[in-house]
């Protein structure tokens, strides 16, 4: 977190209000209340920039849990804007455009490195940053030379690569089936800072991790040196068509790959599909938040909130007309993404999006609409941000997260709730991550994929 300079406009206002305190009790109370409110109320129109924030900017002179949550949520939205900014061919933001323009072009994070291309068979050295990596062999029937720019390789049918494997069962995870009866697809990507750390230390292989034999410590973003640290992006996608109108989604193309190694009966296949974004996680390690900052966004039509009346005629992962659908329950086995149709999942949000986050979402939607009136990004909203309230705790390596629980309806569909060790908490879960040697791997499970 970065506290604003003493002479900032906000502080000058605070000092002026403090002087009022000497006049009367009522002016004191009113001044302090008025001072507190701006820390929570969002500004009318946020500025949209392609700069990924390097640290949280603390706006209140007396930060509270609520005011800091607001600051972290702003950090999340700023990050979302920057990462989804139209990109040049080298992945840098195209500053001639603003977010929402050129909606069919790749955005910044699409130049990040897919985990599949880092942890290779036999622990092989991954191709250098910026070099395209060949798709799985089964995709050879597709002309790789003519893929649309930014084409993803969607090889996962779960947030974890082995969701079809029984090892995922204890966590009651499982595939998420969309309203067309198709499997939702996922990807995990790392930015260059994180990729370089893995390659430099040879953490892409088991042998490399054994030689490294230490706790991983990925680079942090540093506002002083202006260095961008480690960022992970996890995305969730549905195939366009049927009940999904491409005009309502950020879409791209993807080689959708069914992996036969995950469960008997799955046949290898690879299809080039237009897919639409439904879930978006950002994990960003900063200097003041060594437990990382965890931001999560969803498509606004994903799911209703439990206990609240359905407000939409149709959702991406909920059928308002289904009276006997089991809610937040994984589909019955056997699982096979190659099936022509699987009964759709029925998902509700368990923890409501707070009023403050909804207000911030509205504020950013206004800014996005002011930039591009029909921006597709108006269809995405922040669920929340999880952050460490005591990052330097000597007894709790999770840094006492706030909020205690956080789930994305597409990425943690079946483990939402508020039961410790059972319900989704980004930091509590990722705190357990270790490499193949058993050394803590700095809040990422990716290193376990090394061969």
């Amino acid at each position, binding site marked *: 977190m970065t506290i604003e300079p003493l002479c900032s406009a906000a502080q000058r206002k605070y000092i002026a209000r403090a002087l009022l305190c000497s006049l009367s009790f009522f002016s004191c109370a009113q001044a302090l209340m008025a001072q507190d409110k701006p820390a929570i109320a969002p500004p009318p129109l946020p500025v949209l920039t392609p700069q990924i924030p390097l640290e949280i900017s603390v706006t209140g002179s007396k*930060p*509270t*849990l609520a005011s*800091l949550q607001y600051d972290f949520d702003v950090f999340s939205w700023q990050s979302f804007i920057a990462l989804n900014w139209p990109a040049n061919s080298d992945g840098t933001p195209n500053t001639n455009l603003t977010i929402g323009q050129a909606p069919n072009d790749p955005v910044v994070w699409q130049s990040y490195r897919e985990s599949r291309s880092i942890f290779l068979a036999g622990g092989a050295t991954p191709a250098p940053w910026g070099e395209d990596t060949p798709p799985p062999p089964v995709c050879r029937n597709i002309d790789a030379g003519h893929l649309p720019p930014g084409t993803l390789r969607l090889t996962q049918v779960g947030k974890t690569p082995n969701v079809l494997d029984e090892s995922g069962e204890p966590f009651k995870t499982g595939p998420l089936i969309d309203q067309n009866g198709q499997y939702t697809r996922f990807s995990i990507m790392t930015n260059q800072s994180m990729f370089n750390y893995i390659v430099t230390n040879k953490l892409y292989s088991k042998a490399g991790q054994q030689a490294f034999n230490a706790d991983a410590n990925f680079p942090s973003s540093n506002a002083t040196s202006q260095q961008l640290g480690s960022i992970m992006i996890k995305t969730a996608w549905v195939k366009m068509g049927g009940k999904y109108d491409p005009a309502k989604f950020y879409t791209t193309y993807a080689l959708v790959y069914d992996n036969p190694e995950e469960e008997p009966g799955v046949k290898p296949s690879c299809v080039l599909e237009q897919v639409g974004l439904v879930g978006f996680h950002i994990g960003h390690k900063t200097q003041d938040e060594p437990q990382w900052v965890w931001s999560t966004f969803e498509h606004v039509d994903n799911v209703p909130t439990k206990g609240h009346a359905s407000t939409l005629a149709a959702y991406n992962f909920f059928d308002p007309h289904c009276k006997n659908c089991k809610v937040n329950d994984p589909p019955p086995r056997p699982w096979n993404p190659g099936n022509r149709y699987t009964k759709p999942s029925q998902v509700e949000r368990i923890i409501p999006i707070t009023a403050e986050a909804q207000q911030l979402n509205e504020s950013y939607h206004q800014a996005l609409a002011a930039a591009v009136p029909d921006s597709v990004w108006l269809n995405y909203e922040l669920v929340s941000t999880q952050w460490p*309230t*005591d990052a330097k705790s*000597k*007894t*709790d*390596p*999770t840094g*006492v*997260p*706030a*909020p*205690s629980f956080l789930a994305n309806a597409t990425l943690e569909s079946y483990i939402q709730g508020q*039961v*410790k*060790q059972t319900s989704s908490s980004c930091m*509590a879960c990722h*705190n*357990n*991550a*270790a490499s193949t040697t*058993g*050394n*803590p791997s700095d809040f990422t499970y990716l290193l376990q994929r090394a061969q």
Partner: protein
Amino acid sequence: MSSEMDNFIGLSAVLTGFSHNLLAPPLDPVDIKAEYLPFFKRKIAQESGDPNLAGQIFQKYSALHAQGLTPQQIGAAMLDPSNGEDFVLACRKLIFMWYSGAWPTLIPAAGSTPASTVSDMISAKSYTASLVWQVMQSHPMGDSNYRYGYWAKAPAPLSDYTGN
């Protein structure tokens, strides 16, 4: 934080030996105190039949604190039998609640059966937030924030867990 909450946390710090900041961190997403204070007031009123007893306890603590006494002096004064049986028992139950996350019920001896204490867990949150785990320099069964392999390393000093 209300004046009543200030007194509740101040008294709790004195009686448990934990620091004020550990019981009520400035940024407190767990916020177990918000669960404990109303629970404590309700139970004390029910069991003593005196709806004002909790308030009297807080007032006494506040007065002692205002005199600039040490935590040890305040603790001794709060647990002095001259305060009355219900008053002292309530203070002891406050300690029990913080340490165990549960509320105790004293069962007097009957015939050949000796006196005993049974307790009911207040909530799932109080189980994980109870101070006994901190004193053990450990974690609740079934809920650990430690990283893989922590068992092979010495825990942090006890003072890091108690804040004192």
